[in-house]
């Protein structure tokens, strides 16, 4: 029969685990993480509501690189090294990506947006924003709130505006 108690208790544990995680990095050093976060923040900015920074995307990326995406560490190292080089070419007086203006960061991204590294970082940023909070990102379900998901374990019809219309016609 329905495994309701089990399901609910598993979900409860997942929520607790996500909520109690204190922000610290497992793989990345702080400076490197800050540079990646600056780019992630341009991919999903904080305009019109919380973005990658508020969702803790960088903590997702940090954990991903020590778990299921460990194979991608080199791509990050090389990708960021090349990006720093481009930063120096484009903005010779700058010291970090994080200290560039938003406009400058966007100009920098335009130079690499067709690269495999950028596609990987884009993918990880989105996963960190909209993936399960148990992976370290999507803190407080920030991403799910932004797209309008209630995140319940069960729903009753009507689900949306149009099937509710039909329900209304029947009544």
């Amino acid at each position, binding site marked *: 029969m329905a495994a309701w108690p089990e399901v609910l208790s598993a979900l409860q544990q997942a929520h607790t685990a996500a909520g109690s995680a204190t922000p610290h990095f497992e793989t990345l050093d702080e400076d490197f993480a800050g540079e990646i976060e600056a780019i992630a923040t341009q991919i999903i900015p904080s305009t*019109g509501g919380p973005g990658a920074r508020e969702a803790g995307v960088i903590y997702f990326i940090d954990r991903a690189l020590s778990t*299921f995406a460990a194979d991608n560490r080199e791509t990050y190292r090389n990708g960021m090294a090349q990006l720093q080089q481009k930063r120096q070419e484009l903005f010779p007086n700058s010291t970090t990506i994080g200290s560039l203006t938003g406009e400058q960061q966007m100009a920098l991204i335009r130079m690499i947006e067709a690269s495999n590294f950028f596609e990987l970082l884009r*993918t990880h940023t989105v*996963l960190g924003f909209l993936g399960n909070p148990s992976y370290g990102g999507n803190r407080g379900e920030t991403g*799910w709130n932004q797209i309008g998901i209630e995140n319940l374990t069960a729903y009753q019809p009507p689900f*949306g505006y*149009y099937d509710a219309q039909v329900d209304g016609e029947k009544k």
Partner: protein
Amino acid sequence: MSGVAFPTTDAADFLVLGAGAAGGVVAKELATAGFRVVVLEQGPYLRERDYSHDEIKYTIQPGLTNDPKLQPITYRKSEADSAQPMKAIEYGRQVGGGSVHFTANYWRFHESDFHERSLFGAVSGADLRDWPIAYADLEPYYTKAEHELGISGLAGANPFEAPRSMPYPLPPMPVKSSGVLFERAAKKLGLHPFPAPVAILSEPYQGRAACVNCGFCESFGCEMGAKSSTLVSVIPLAEKTGRCEIRPDCYVRKIETDDAGRATGAIYFDRNRREIFQPARTVFVCANGAETPKLLLMSKSKRFPEGLANSSGLVGKYLMWDNGGEAQGLFEHPLNEYKGIQVTRLIHDYYAADPKRGFYGGGGIDARFDFYPAGFALHGLPPDAPRWGSEFKRIFTTYFNRTMMLMAHTTSLAQAKNTVSLDPEVKDAWGLPAIRITFDCHPDDVATMKWMMTKEIEILEAAGALKTWSQPYDVVDNMPSRHLMGTCRMGKDPGTSVVNAYSRTHDVPNLFLVDGSNFVTSARQQPTATIQALAYRAADYAIGAAKRGDLS
């Protein structure tokens, strides 16, 4: 799990390789008929408590499917190319197989699907043939499958449906907004929408709870046991007999034969990678349209130098898969498609081939939303949407709840050049050859998909979409394919087929193959109902043959 364990030294009456959509059915039928059955399954034995609503685990990582890190797949478009590692195919890899993580669409074939060659003639470049059976031969088994597994739907609602002896055991699932919009538009265009038949319980059934509309069907295992996988329906019945052992984490590398050319059992690696020989009187291979031919090709011997049951040379040939083509539409109000099962309405108006279209093929179209949140932001947006930045964010956050999709399921024509073979170089984690896929669509298949996409846009516009979009079709972008068919085709003539009309191999009298590999044609995809009907029929035949002494 009832946990009966037989000594591996004892010969089983039947050895079933693969505990999926077909293997689960076969095991239940044989065990309840009184035979002792051992089922070897590559993957683990998971239960409802092991599943979760974790998009990353089940759609980004191979949570319930073959893991290319352990079992690489290589792909090439044609024999002239060298095959490169690529996850070209995907299949369920646990007890219950693909019936655990599938979207649960459950279409019967139409009567015409068994006789396309006779009805429509030859198609240039394809090997279009009739099946050796007709719809009427399978009808009782479709009915049995629907009732034993638990299928929801509305009999008679599809005017193109073949005759059925009984209605569905359960009423249709609640309609979603995508279903309502699609139904209105389709009717406006003179089409015939109907409630989707699905292997999901709309009401409690046989001790199992009804669906709670959580929305995580496609790619996920059902935490409620409401998806009618073999894991929660027939496998428990098989185990309850005390005559069926489901042995998980067992990876078969060879079917053994004796001097008389009869199957004697199978050699497998257990979870500790020890080699074990399990003897058996009769062997059923239900490993799916890729793993079944792979195992036969690996089971070479002096007597069978080209692989087991391969005197025709057709094992692994005629691979067909899930061709489709999709379009999306944005609507004014929230659809909240993340709630509820994926598909609630579809049409079969374009199912039959029509020579007037200028190509061979047809398909069904269903209304759904095929994305989970991250997948939508990454792959579901209109092609003109930015891929990062504030506009990217605005689009994925505001479109997610207001977008729906129409998805076509179309003909995949059988071509001898599309194959499953053993990669000569790449090995898996056990040292066995990787599956090599050689595949390219027939030009008519591509024309069918493109034509369907124009129909989808037409319907979305009639539904009042504010914006519509579709992705151009490319065989590589469409990977991995999940509906693997045709690689051990069924037929009367041992020269042009691998199994007979009862899924028994022409070459080895006590060897049966039953899964998508039997398919002579692909119909219009959604093969699960037909795979399971074939499995019931093959088991029925094998039980009779065993009782008559025909198998020993």
